């Protein structure tokens, strides 16, 4: 069974939900600790959401220097699948595994809602169980969710097909070009602001086609990586 590491930083909130997503998808979640420079031989890593180090300095800025992140950066360079969700996405940009950065939502309000995303790249390690152009619904909840990068970087991301998810409908936070998630050139590192781990089980997710709280679109992030790992 594939083993997926889930990192806990001080102030991480969604590590248990992420571990549950891994389990429901058929993988074995492995808890990883920020202070240990040890990935315990996992096959992939999830950096979950929350407010690591209270978002002090900048969101994700201090977590980037955690001992475990040195290992994550090395392993990501060698092709290890890494998924950064919300605060995890912020950590990935601060660690320079993904370009750009996040600033406060344009509205200045903390947002919490069910969000429709369009999948624009279904070739990454974390999205291969989606169809390109498919709309999915997962929760969005953040304060610093406005994705920014310079025009050259944005053009590069678009040109190389590295925009993985775009907000559908109203742009919730002012993100450049409605970008909700991106990938690195190799497609093994993916970061997004919305939360797939909160839409993995009927009865607890967003409203879906089969009734209230029936949405489980988030589960396919985890089944995608499990499929990627077995080849």
């Amino acid at each position, binding site marked *: 069974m594939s083993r997926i590491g889930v990192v806990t930083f001080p102030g991480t909130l969604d590590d248990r939900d992420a571990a549950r997503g891994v389990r429901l998808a058929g993988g074995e979640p492995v808890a990883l600790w920020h202070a240990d420079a040890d990935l315990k031989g996992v096959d992939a890593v999830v950096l979950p959401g929350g407010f690591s180090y209270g978002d002090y*300095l*900048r969101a994700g*800025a201090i977590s980037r*220097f955690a001992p475990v992140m040195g290992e994550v950066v090395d392993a990501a360079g060698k092709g290890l699948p890494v998924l950064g969700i919300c605060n995890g996405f912020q950590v990935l*940009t*601060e660690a320079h595994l993904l*370009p*750009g*950065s996040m*600033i*406060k*939502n*344009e*509205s*200045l309000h903390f947002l919490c809602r069910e969000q429709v995303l369009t999948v624009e790249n279904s070739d990454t390690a974390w999205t291969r169980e989606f169809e390109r152009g498919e709309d999915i619904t997962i929760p969005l909840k953040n304060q610093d969710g*406005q994705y*920014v*990068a*310079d025009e050259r970087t944005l053009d590069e991301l678009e040109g190389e097909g590295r925009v993985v998810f775009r907000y559908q409908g109203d742009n919730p936070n*002012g993100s450049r070009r409605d970008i909700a998630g991106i990938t690195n050139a190799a497609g093994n590192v993916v970061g997004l602001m919305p939360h797939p781990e909160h839409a993995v089980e009927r009865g607890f997710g967003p409203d879906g086609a089969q009734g209230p709280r029936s949405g489980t679109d988030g589960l396919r992030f985890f089944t995608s990586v499990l499929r990627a790992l077995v080849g």
Partner: protein
Amino acid sequence: MGRVVVDVMPKPEILDPQGKAVAGALPRLGFGQFTSVRQGKRFELEVDGPVTPEVLEAAAAAAEQVLSNPVIEDVVRVADIEADAAATVASQGLA
């Protein structure tokens, strides 16, 4: 004991939502003359001993690598706070 001050500001081309909110609040308190506000961060780094050129160089490196994110922010000042204060006083003819 020496102290280095580092000022970090959001890049001009990046919308500063916090500054915008402050700018919106000022007229409500009667401060109608301020047309724009941008909010940055100030860090004070202390060292044992005086602020040498090497200390300033290390502070500048820390400012670029940790204290700011070059995607969204500029380091606008790295300076010896006491020397700066002394220079200001001298320029005002008070020293």
